C-alpha cells in the first residue's frame, strides 16, 4: 500500500506518527508546498517577540521523516487529485499514485475585501517567510496597524509593542478576540492593551489601505480617520485550503466535510486539521475548528484509519490558551451562555482576574480564565467534564478542592510585574 499525506503541520505529522503505530511496512510519502522539516506556525509570534530563535521554531528534524519511514517531497505543491485513477498531481508535473490519501493542507490567512491589501507594506503572519519579513519591519518607533483581533493579531501586536513599535488594532466587531472571549473578558484584555499604549478600535472597519511610493501606508477607517503606518498586518482569520479535491466539498461551504472516521465522501481519501469540517464534541452540525489540538486529534484518528484501524473521532472541543501582555488568556468549549444555562463567575480571586464557567443541568459546557497561568490549569481539570459531558454538581466545592484561594494566591503573588513594566 502507498499512503500519501499532503501537508506538514500538526495534522499531517500526528497522522504520520499514528499511522506508523499501526503499520510499519507500507510506503508513505509526505508532500508539502513549503520547504524543509516542519516548523510550528503557532510559535511565529514568539519568534517576533524574540522569545524563540529561528531554530527554535522547527518541531521536527530532517531525519525524523526517514526514521518514520516516510519519503518527503518538500517545496512541491500538490495541485489536484484524480480520484478515479487515484493519482495526486504535483505542481512540477509529476503524478503520484496512492492507495490512500490524507489531505492535511491546513488553512491560509483570510483576505478581507479591502482595497489596497496587495500593497508592499501589507503583511500577514502565517509562514516562516512572513515572520522573517516582519522581523525586519519591527523597528523601534515604527507604526504598525493590525487588522483583526484574534490570537495571531494580538500576539503580533504584543510582539510589536515589546519591540517598541506604536501599535493600533482595528476590529470590525464590538469586542476583541470574539471567538475566544466573552465581552466581559474582552473588556479586561482591552484595558490591559490600553494600559500598554496599544490603541484598540473596536466596531471599526478598515475601508482601504494605500501604500505610497516610499512604502508608507495609510489605513482609512469607517470612523473617517486616516492612520499613517509603516506596516499593516492582516490577521482577520483563516480559510481552509480545501481546493485540492473539489469532489469532497459541499456547494458554497468552505472546509472538507469528514465522517467520524475522518474519511471524506471520496472513499480512501481522508482529511484532518484546519482544512476539515469535522464532528464536534457537543454534537450538532460539523464545524471548522482550526486549532492546533484539534489538528493533532484528527490527525491521530486519520492516521490510524489510513492503516485500517477503524477508529472513530469523539469530536473536537475548542480550547484556546496563550499569554498576551502578561495575562494568561484561556477558554474552553461553549463559554457564552444560552437561555437556561447557569453561569458561575469570579472576579479577582487569587491571581485570576476573571473566571467564568457555563453549565447546563450541572454539566459544564465551557469556561474562560484570565490572569495567572493557574487559570489554564483549572480549565485543564475542567476539560474532561466538558468533553464527556460529566456533571459537576457542586462547582464551588470543585474550585475549593483546586485550592484556588490558598496556593493560587500564594503563587501569583510571586509575579507582580505588569505588562507595561516589562515593556521598558
Amino acid at each position: 500500500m502507498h499512503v500519501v499525506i499532503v501537508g506538514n503541520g500538526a495534522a499531517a505529522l500526528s497522522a504520520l506518527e499514528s499511522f506508523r503505530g499501526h503499520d510499519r511496512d507500507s510506503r508513505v510519502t509526505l508532500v508539502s508546498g513549503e520547504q524543509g522539516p516542519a516548523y510550528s506556525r503557532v510559535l511565529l509570534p514568539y519568534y517576533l517577540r524574540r522569545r524563540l530563535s529561528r531554530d527554535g521554531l522547527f518541531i521536527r528534524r530532517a531525519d525524523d521523516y526517514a526514521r518514520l519511514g516516510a519519503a518527503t517531497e518538500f517545496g512541491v505543491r500538490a495541485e489536484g487529485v484524480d480520484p478515479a485513477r487515484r493519482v495526486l498531481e504535483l505542481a512540477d508535473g509529476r503524478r503520484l499514485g496512492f492507495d490512500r490519501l490524507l489531505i492535511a493542507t491546513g488553512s491560509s490567512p483570510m483576505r478581507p475585501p479591502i482595497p489596497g491589501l496587495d500593497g508592499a507594506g501589507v503583511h500577514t503572519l502565517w509562514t516562516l517567510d512572513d515572520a522573517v519579513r516582519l522581523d525586519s519591519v519591527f523597528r523601534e518607533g515604527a507604526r504598525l496597524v493590525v487588522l483583526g483581533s484574534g490570537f495571531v493579531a494580538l500576539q503580533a501586536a504584543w510582539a510589536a509593542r515589546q519591540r517598541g513599535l506604536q501599535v493600533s488594532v482595528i476590529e470590525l466587531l464590538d469586542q476583541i478576540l470574539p471567538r475566544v472571549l466573552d465581552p466581559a473578558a474582552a473588556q479586561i484584555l482591552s484595558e490591559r492593551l490600553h494600559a500598554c499604549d496599544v490603541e484598540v478600535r473596536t466596531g471599526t472597519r478598515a475601508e482601504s489601505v494605500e501604500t505610497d511610493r516610499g512604502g508608507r501606508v495609510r489605513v482609512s477607517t469607517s470612523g473617517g480617520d486616516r492612520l499613517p503606518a509603516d506596516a499593516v498586518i492582516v490577521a482577520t482569520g483563516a480559510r481552509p485550503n480545501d481546493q485540492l479535491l473539489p469532489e469532497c466539498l459541499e456547494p458554497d461551504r468552505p472546509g472538507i466535510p469528514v465522517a467520524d472516521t475522518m474519511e471524506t465522501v471520496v472513499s480512501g481519501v481522508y482529511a484532518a486539521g484546519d482544512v476539515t469540517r469535522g464532528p464536534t464534541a457537543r454534537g450538532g452540525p460539523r464545524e471548522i475548528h482550526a486549532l492546533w489540538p484539534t489538528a493533532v486529534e484528527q490527525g491521530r484518528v486519520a492516521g490510524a484509519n489510513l492503516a485500517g484501524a477503524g477508529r472513530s473521532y469523539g469530536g473536537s472541543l475548542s480550547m484556546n490558551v496563550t499569554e498576551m501582555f502578561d495575562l494568561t488568556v484561556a477558554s474552553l468549549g461553549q463559554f457564552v451562555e444560552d437561555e437556561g444555562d447557569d453561569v458561575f463567575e469570579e472576579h479577582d480571586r487569587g491571581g485570576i482576574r476573571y473566571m467564568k464557567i457555563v453549565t447546563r443541568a450541572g454539566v459544564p459546557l465551557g469556561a474562560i480564565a484570565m490572569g495567572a497561568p493557574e487559570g489554564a490549569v483549572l480549565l485543564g481539570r475542567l476539560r474532561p467534564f466538558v468533553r464527556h459531558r460529566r456533571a459537576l454538581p457542586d462547582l464551588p466545592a470543585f474550585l475549593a478542592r483546586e485550592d484556588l484561594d490558598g496556593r493560587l494566591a500564594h503563587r501569583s503573588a510571586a509575579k507582580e510585574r505588569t505588562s507595561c513594566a516589562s515593556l521598558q
Partner: protein
Amino acid sequence: MRIVAVDPDACVACRDCEYACAFRQSGDFARSASHIRVNFYADERACVPLTCMHCEDAWCLAVCPAAAIDRDPGTGAVTIDATRCAGCKMCLLACPYGNIHFNAETGVSAKCDLCGGDPMCVRACISGALRYVDAEELADLRREVVDASLKRLLRLSKGVR
C-alpha cells in the same frame, strides 16, 4: 517503567514530598515550586498527593506545539525541554489532572521528571504513601484495592459486616 504510586490512605499530609520536590527544583523550600501537590480535604478527612503519572498516551506530549515535551529514554518519564518550551501553556490546558505547572520566573512549563530515576518525593515520604514502583506492579496493586472495595460492597449489600 516505574512511576510514583500514591496510596492516599497512607498519606498523613506532612507535605515533606512537596518540600523535597521544591528543594530539588529551586534549592528552596517554597512549596509553590513543587511538582507534587498534596490536596488536603479537611471535611472528608482525606489527603491526596498528586503528581504526574507519565501517561502511556500522554496528551500533553502529543499536543505541545513546540515539540518541547518528550519521553526520557532511560526512565520513561514525560519531560519538558525548558530550552524548547515557548511558554504557550497548551500543556497546562491539556493535562486533565492539573499536574503541569507554569514557572513564572523562567516563563516555561514545568513538571515531574522523576528526578532522573530517583524521585526525591518518594525518598522524603515518611508514611509509605509514595512508592516508586513498576507501572505493571501498580496495576496489580490497583486490582487489589478494587477487589477489596468490591468485597466490602458485596458484604454490605448482603447485610454482612
